[in-house]
């Protein structure tokens, strides 16, 4: 039973990180209708910025994290403005390829700036205490990760349903042309989406590296792909879907490893994804969209 609980908590913790990353994917997809494959690499940049803040400039952890969020936000807006905006009218395939190119560009820039040697992310930030409940140990990193996920999820839901910008986002998501006709600045709305998604990526980067401290230019790739899977799993474009998909993916991964085979962890995750998509092609919480002819 203890082992089960232990695995469950580890799964929730891993799943929460996937969920935060998946939120970025799903927001950008829902609003700009594009897959931003560079999202995983923005996570990596965020982690490196926070690493520099903590390791080289001895900044307090919260300041380092805020700095990472600011840098990532600017980076996200810049990428959107330079690489994606000119392609707004192009085919979705062109944008997809640009995003993959951007992903490699970021990785190689990181390789140039920070070098190839892996760095170890200082654990001082959120590894401050450990809870002992009988044989069960829960690190503060786990608690903070799960908590941050819940807070972000609630904040985002309120933001998109209550604020003016949030409503504009939903309009753009529903019908870009009509939104523009109604006087919504589509480009600005998409920029803001990227800004929020990238700031979340910075948070995800810090949380990811606090739990799994090895930081290298490829750190964001695999979590990025898993989170993208989580977004599809939950129904891409849906905020609660990304959250649910992320958490489920993390839990399935850990349980698969713990009870079936450590070698098959990833295979199990993707097998579940295939089954879900066969039964429900739009993902768990995705809405079916009828194509008008």
């Amino acid at each position: 039973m203890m082992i089960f609980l232990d695995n469950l908590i580890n799964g929730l913790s891993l799943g929460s990180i996937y969920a935060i990353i998946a939120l970025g994917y799903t927001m950008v997809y829902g609003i700009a209708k594009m897959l931003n494959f560079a999202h995983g690499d923005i996570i990596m940049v965020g982690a490196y910025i926070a690493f520099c803040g903590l390791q080289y400039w001895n900044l307090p952890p919260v300041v380092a994290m805020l700095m990472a969020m600011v840098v990532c936000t600017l980076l996200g807006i810049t990428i959107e403005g330079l690489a994606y905006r000119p392609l707004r009218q192009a085919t979705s395939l062109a944008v997809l390829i640009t995003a993959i190119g951007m992903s490699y560009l970021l990785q190689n820039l990181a390789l140039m700036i920070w070098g190839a040697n892996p760095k170890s992310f200082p654990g001082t930030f959120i590894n401050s205490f450990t809870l002992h409940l009988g044989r069960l140990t829960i690190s503060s990193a786990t608690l903070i990760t799960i908590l941050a996920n819940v807070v972000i999820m609630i904040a985002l839901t309120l933001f998109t349903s209550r604020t003016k910008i949030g409503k504009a986002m939903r309009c753009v998501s529903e019908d870009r042309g009509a939104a523009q006709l109604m006087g919504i600045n589509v480009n600005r709305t998409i920029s803001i989406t990227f800004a929020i998604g990238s700031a979340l990526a910075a948070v995800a980067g810090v949380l990811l590296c606090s739990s799994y401290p090895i930081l290298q230019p490829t750190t964001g790739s695999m979590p990025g792909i898993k989170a993208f899977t989580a977004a599809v799993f939950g129904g891409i474009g849906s905020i609660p879907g990304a959250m649910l998909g992320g958490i489920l993916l993390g839990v399935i991964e850990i349980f698969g490893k713990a009870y079936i085979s450590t070698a098959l962890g990833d295979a199990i995750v993707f097998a579940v994804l295939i089954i879900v998509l066969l039964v429900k092609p739009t993902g768990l919480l995705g809405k079916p969209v009828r194509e008008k002819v």
Partner: protein
Amino acid sequence: MKKLLALVLAMVMTLTVCAAVAEEETVTLKIAHIGPTTGPAALYGLATLHGAELAAKEINEAGGKYRIELIAEDDEHNPEKVINAYNKVLDDGAQMILGTTTSKPCEAASAQGYVDRVFFLTPSASSTAVIEDKDNAFQVCFTDPNQGAASAEYIASHKLGTKIAIIYNDSDVYSTGIRDSFVAKAAELSLEIVSETSFSTDDNADFTVQVADAQNAGADLVFLPMYYTPASNILNTAAAKNYKPVFFGVDGMDGILGVEGFDTSLAEGVMLLTPFVATSEDEKVVSFVTKYREAYNEDPIQFAADAYDGIYILVEAAEKAGITSEMKFDEVCDPMIAAMQEISYEGLTGAMTWDESGAVTKTPMAATIINGIYVFED
């Protein structure tokens, strides 16, 4: 007049021949170093490159019979890119290859080298597949089975643990090779393996399940046949779970202390099998470490020592084989293969001999990390 001209010409020719003979006194060996100087395994590739550079510089400055011309190429620890690097160095006139640094690319490159007849001496690629069924490839480091079996023997003879857990990378030949021989030897020595879990290269961040499995099985020693990057995540996870067994690694663990930002207290008490530690008081090692620090501003790891030895071994074998500056790589290969089996070399990493398989014979030693440095056990 014609006679005089002929005489003069004859004299000129004789002189030219004499000059040519005099020039042959020094032999320039074109040695290629191939290893990952960028990418995830760059720490190893840079270490072997620096070790080789240092040895080459020493030999060139000493001004003996041999000069070394080092040709360096990056393979990014990638089995496809290594073939590009290999072709590039051969185009650049390399006669033999010191490399490649890591196992997977080396398997690809030495197999191609077997077909093209290129001589390989790898400082650090330790999987058996690097030398298996290939007469052209030799190793400075131990083969993986040797490391696994030696680890099991060391653990048994020093009674380091009674319940053993293994975490290994099942997508990496280096890791699985060591794991297989460790398990075989452990059975022979009746060491009890209570937990065995794996991970893959693509997914090396979350180790909570693997560590929990070892902890719940009550393992008092965890064997980690892997490179230092995943190992440092494992140490971190274990610390978070307040789990403190003996961690026992192999040569891939070397370098863990060099990771920037790594909390070295996590590695306190970690043991690893390695034929070289920078803190040794051996005269040769002290001189090497001093020069290395001067040149590169850091402590050399085992890989650097392997490559440093590698260059000297190549020179010794080349002397035995009578290699000259003009010989092409395919002419160099067979004499070098024969010479390698005849020479013995005493280097930084111990006294070494080779058999026809290409595997080295030397004695393994274990070091423990104490206060952030490696300390040799007896």
